[in-house]
């Protein structure tokens, strides 16, 4: 019975995420257009609201071409991996308190080691990009794939070490505990400001968004890892990319901004507050996307090892000293 409920919740969550993805493509294109003083898609339906449906129809009916030079098995496997693990990470984000949605817990899984799960999902998701780069049998794709792996080595460490401080303060790897701790003691973004910034920058790299979108890099790599993909296989890569964005925008408030709890003593409504915080981060990422340039990937690696990692490590040691001097986590 437990498994059935979890499966149903997972299904609902997947559908929700796919719906969010569809309308994020619309919102993203409209939003980016406004940043560039354009209008964006507005022809299909009122305000262009039916655009995602038109896009979906187009993608489905497009001819599915495989490259002759490709490694068939891996070529098919890569989008699947990318898409699956991009979906997986959202499963442990709590959207509200226990039993708040019609008596059902608003999360799919409540893991004691939630943060480890997040890292696992994030790392496995890079395999999709990495393998597609190799399997396409094209040098642009291969370069894109290698860049993604090289970048991963750079930012993943900073991402992990940045979370050590918060985990040490809260004394738990469970996301629910982290959220509840923040409701009592205040936002971790304030307690742990330096690593919050480090985490945000590393998360940008993990999403593959500007300024770290060198994996795709249309101008020099013709689309990078996804050059040789089209039709639904391309869409699943695109989905994975946007799902990373969706997940990270929900994860950062959960980890650092008290998740679903209301800020400033406002009335608590499950989902609503997380949704608002989510929108804020979606907007910030889009804003950065519209404003900044792309870095080279060696710049990211140097930045990650030379700035992000030392800052995160120093802050972790500081937090460890502070927690130890208080005699353990709160």
């Amino acid at each position, binding site marked *: 019975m437990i498994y059935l409920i979890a499966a149903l919740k997972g299904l609902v969550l997947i559908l929700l995420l796919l719906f969010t993805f569809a309308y994020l493509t619309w919102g993203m294109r409209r939003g980016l257009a406004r940043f560039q*003083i354009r209008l964006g898609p507005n022809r299909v339906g009122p305000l262009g609201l039916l655009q995602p449906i038109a896009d979906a129809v187009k993608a489905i009916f497009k001819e599915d071409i495989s490259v002759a030079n490709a490694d068939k098995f891996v070529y098919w496997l890569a989008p699947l991996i990318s898409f699956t693990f991009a979906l997986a990470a959202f499963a442990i984000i709590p959207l509200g308190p226990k039993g708040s949605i019609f008596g059902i817990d608003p999360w799919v899984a409540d893991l004691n080691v939630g943060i480890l799960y997040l890292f696992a999902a994030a790392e496995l998701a890079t395999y999709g990009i990495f393998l597609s780069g190799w399997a396409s049998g094209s040098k642009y794709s291969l370069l894109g794939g290698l860049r993604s792996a090289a970048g991963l080595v750079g930012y993943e460490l900073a991402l992990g070490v940045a979370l050590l401080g918060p985990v040490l303060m809260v004394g738990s790897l469970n996301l629910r505990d982290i959220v509840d701790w923040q409701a009592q003691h205040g936002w971790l973004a304030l307690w742990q400001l330096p690593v919050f910034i480090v985490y945000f920058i590393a998360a940008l790299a993990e999403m593959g968004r500007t300024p770290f979108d060198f994996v795709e890099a249309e101008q020099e790599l013709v689309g990078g890892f996804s050059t040789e993909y089209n039709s639904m296989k391309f869409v699943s890569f695109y989905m994975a990319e946007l799902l990373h964005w969706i997940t990270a925008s929900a994860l950062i408030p959960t980890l650092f901004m008290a998740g679903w709890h209301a800020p400033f003593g406002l009335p608590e409504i499950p989902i609503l507050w997380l949704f608002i915080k989510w929108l804020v981060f979606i907007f910030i990422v889009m*804003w950065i996307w*519209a404003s900044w340039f792309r870095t080279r990937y060696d710049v990211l690696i140097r930045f990650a090892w030379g700035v992000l990692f030392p800052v995160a490590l120093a802050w972790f040691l500081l937090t460890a000293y502070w927690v130890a001097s208080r005699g353990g986590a709160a």
Partner: protein
Amino acid sequence: MSVYSLAKALGITLKHMFSKPVTIPYPSAPVPLKPRFHGRHVLTRHPDGLEKCIGCSLCAAACPAYAIYVEPAENDPENPVSAGERYAKVYEINMLRCIFCGLCEEACPTGAIVLGNEFELADYVYADLVYGKEDLLADTVGSKAQRREAKQTGKPVKLGFEVPYVRPELEGVKYE
């Protein structure tokens, strides 16, 4: 690269976000044209109705794309077509060759050929893009394709631009 310039970039895009989009949704909204726009040619007339073109072929000589073909004929003194001795019996411009440079306008001694404002010239058949006198004279509004469509639907020709100024050389041309 500095934090300041990154912040400045963010500020610029944010400012742009709250300014009015520059996009013109063209087919549903008219395009405001610039005063020096080079559109489809017009053969203008004198106020008394006589054609300005005297069939001298200077425009054809000036045309770098060899798009103009003029065949002159003597005017009937009783019933003149143009103000001069001769008039253009045939005046054709191949719109597929024309590069809209305006040299014909420069070369014309009588100011007969003027590059007007129309630009919606797309058509299906090659031959339809060779514009004759009847398509170019001042009282004709719209391209061949537009006029064909207007004839089929029974509505007046719909032009996709606004004329925000008066050009004196476009004598007698009315864009409604």
